[in-house]
């Protein structure tokens, strides 16, 4: 009994709760626990999952990034246009990384150097970048000429589609970076107490710039994979992505007040979001009721996690 309690209320409590919920869903929802559905589910969270990796850093350092959706769309667009123009997928990939990186860098510099509120800055770049995407494409989707580009998303390795592998690699890498590197620890320190970190000699503004730049690059990767999956660059893609990603992170225990983050939590958060959508569609829940159910699941997930941490007596 007590060991069960310990398990639920311990560090990995969210994971345990998630595992239980997963088991219940698997047993009660028909077609859920099939290989096809699992792969479909994982593919549906690739964009959110990849972007959540760096969003976790961003939130952990007490920042905020609303521009990710636009950046994903813009860099996906850039990849398609550049590869169409040059005939080389590699050039497309590089173009996307450059575009994404620049957006991130600009965010970082404006926020860290000019000390402008991150919410406003990224709200502004969100619009500007979306504008660029629309201008570049004249508001219409751009089709991919080279069928090889589709292969990025369609190819499989050991029976699992490449995008899922990419997401997995990102999870592992960023989990390691967060816990085991100076970069990760400094990120948490900045979020936990920026003043103390600065006085300890951490170059806070450089760190923030790096985090945003990384966010931009990671968005570019997500953008390329998305374009490949939907076989075109779409200026309207990924709208509202920012809120989904931030929700996934917060669900996973990343503190908006900075300083607290864990990769396992974020993975669970991402999966909860994906499973909720998946199950609602499997159960054929009406569109309007989906809104309500989605909201309730979100509430329930944080509520459970909260009860857990309240019981564990952790300080707010």
């Amino acid at each position, binding site marked *: 009994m007590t060991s069960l309690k310990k398990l639920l209320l311990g560090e990995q409590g969210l994971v345990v709760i998630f595992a239980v919920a997963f088991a219940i869903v698997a047993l009660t929802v028909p077609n859920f626990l099939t290989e096809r559905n699992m792969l479909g589910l994982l593919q549906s969270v690739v964009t959110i999952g990849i972007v959540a990796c760096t969003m976790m850093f961003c939130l952990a350092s007490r920042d905020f990034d609303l521009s990710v959706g636009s950046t994903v769309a813009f860099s996906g667009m850039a990849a398609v246009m550049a590869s169409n123009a040059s005939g080389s997928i590699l050039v497309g990939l590089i173009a996307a990384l450059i575009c994404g990186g620049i957006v991130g860098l600009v965010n970082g510099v404006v926020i860290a150097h000019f000390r402008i509120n991150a919410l406003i800055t990224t709200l502004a770049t969100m619009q500007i970048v979306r504008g660029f995407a629309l201008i570049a494409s004249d508001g219409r989707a751009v089709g991919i000429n080279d069928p090889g580009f589709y292969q990025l998303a369609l190819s499989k390795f050991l029976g699992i589609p490449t995008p899922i592998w990419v997401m997995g690699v990102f999870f592992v890498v960023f989990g390691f970076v967060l816990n*085991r*590197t*100076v*970069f990760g*620890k*400094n990120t*948490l*320190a900045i*979020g*936990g*107490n920026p*003043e*103390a*970190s*600065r*006085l*300890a*000699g*951490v*170059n806070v503004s450089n760190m923030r710039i790096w985090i945003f730049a990384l966010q931009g690059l990671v968005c570019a990767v997500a953008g390329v994979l998305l374009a490949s999956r939907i076989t075109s660059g779409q200026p309207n893609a990924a709208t509202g992505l920012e809120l989904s990603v931030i929700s996934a992170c917060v669900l996973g225990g990343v503190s908006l007040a900075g*300083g*607290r983050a864990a990769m396992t939590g974020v993975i669970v958060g991402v999966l909860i979001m994906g499973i909720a959508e998946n199950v609602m569609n499997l159960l054929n829940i009406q569109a309007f009721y989906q809104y309500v159910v989605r909201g309730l699941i979100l509430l329930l997930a944080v509520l459970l996690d909260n009860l857990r941490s309240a019981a564990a*007596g952790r*300080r707010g």
Partner: protein
Amino acid sequence: MQDFLEFRSISKGYPGVQALSDVSFTVRKGAVHGLMGENGAGKSTLIRLLSGDQAADEGEIRIEGEAQGYRSVRDAFRAGVIVIHQELQLVPELTVAENLWLGHFPGKGGVIDRRQLIRVVGEKLTEIGIDVDPSAKIASLSIGERQMVEIAKAVMLDARVIALDEPTSSLSSRESEILFALIERLRSNGTVILYVSHRLDEIFRLCDSLTVLRDGKLAAHHPDISKVTRDQIIAEMVGREIADIWGWRGRDLGPERLRVEAIAGPKLKTPLSFSVRRGEILGFFGLIGAGRSEMARLVYGADTRYQGTVVIDGAKVPADSPPQSIRAGMVLCPEDRKFDGIVQGRSIEENMAISSRRHFSLFGVLDLKKEAELADRFIAKLRIRTPSRKQDIINLSGGNQQKVILGRWLSEQGVKVLVIDEPTRGIDVGAKSEIYEILYDLAAEGMAIVVISSELPEVMGITDRILVMCQGRIAAEIARADFDERRILAAALPDVANASELPTEQVQPS
């Protein structure tokens, strides 16, 4: 011995305040140099300039004759300067070891060598004599333990110059001894130490030389501390003589006003009971982690209680929350001004009136004039150094912030029981005696006052009775007539308390 550290006509201003003007003095190699002055005199500002965090408007700092043009904390660190700031600068979410290494993590290619991280810190802490777990999160430590971790930071990394800004303000005598031993060791290694404190006995005990600042200007420089007297320093600091800091006045004690019965909570497992009479000032003494602050928070209802009742003037106080305690006539002035006291971003005036303004607002509409009057009165009374009452409290010096928080509670009306946790933490000698005067006046009006302090002379100086706490229990009760430094300390030490015949069970209210 040659001059090792030199400040040359340093000036620094903030909007509305000239924090330092034309300050010059030198410190010899291997010296412990004291820095004293009233609250807001510019001590921390000087230290901040030395740390590289901010740059002076004018003047320069020289180390071994070399002008230091550094512009960042990292540069200062490279020049061998380490500063422990007045406010704790730790990251609560990281562990002790991580905090100590922050800014200088060990490891290759950005990957942290975790084993080394913990091992080195563990060794250092043991060596220094600080008993905290290197892998504990800072958030789980008490404020005193955090202060010790801060201090460990200074010795972890070899430095030529170490500046300590009021390091003992939240330490009790036992931890202070550890710090003093450390300072001795550093001195013998030739490290220059700049030591800021408001406690004169510490200054005399540790320092070789001394500088006194007043209103941002150099008031006096004493290359040899043995040539000055306490009174002389006080006069240089405050600009007037203070004969007796404590100025204790006897009072007639009335009937019981506050009674606490078998109170216990999450961090205080053993039930505690005590009572305070009208007009009485009761002192709580103990070492770090003795549980005094926890006790105070439980009594006030700031934390949830497991059991116990609080009775004021025969009426039970609902256990729930601070608002209910305040309505019942009890207030608590908390120990940690940064986290529990100041409201950042708001003015001095608003910070002071936050609780008492309900007395002079009509249907929730404020009386701004009354608020202003209140603020001006306490700014004058507590000698708060500020350009105006509209100043954001975050821009005040540490001691002045503390005074504002005190003002908040001293201005509260209809108070029957006043609980003050570390009332004079970081407050200068001059203001201290003002505060004691106010406490005596309030007591004379019949208020019951509970003072928690880690400064033994203070507890002995101003209270009528002392309860000594040790490991969450009341270890001894001593009346003013029996005050004896040795006896109090003996009761506060855990090992002695367990072995001796001193009462370890709950002490019955007298």
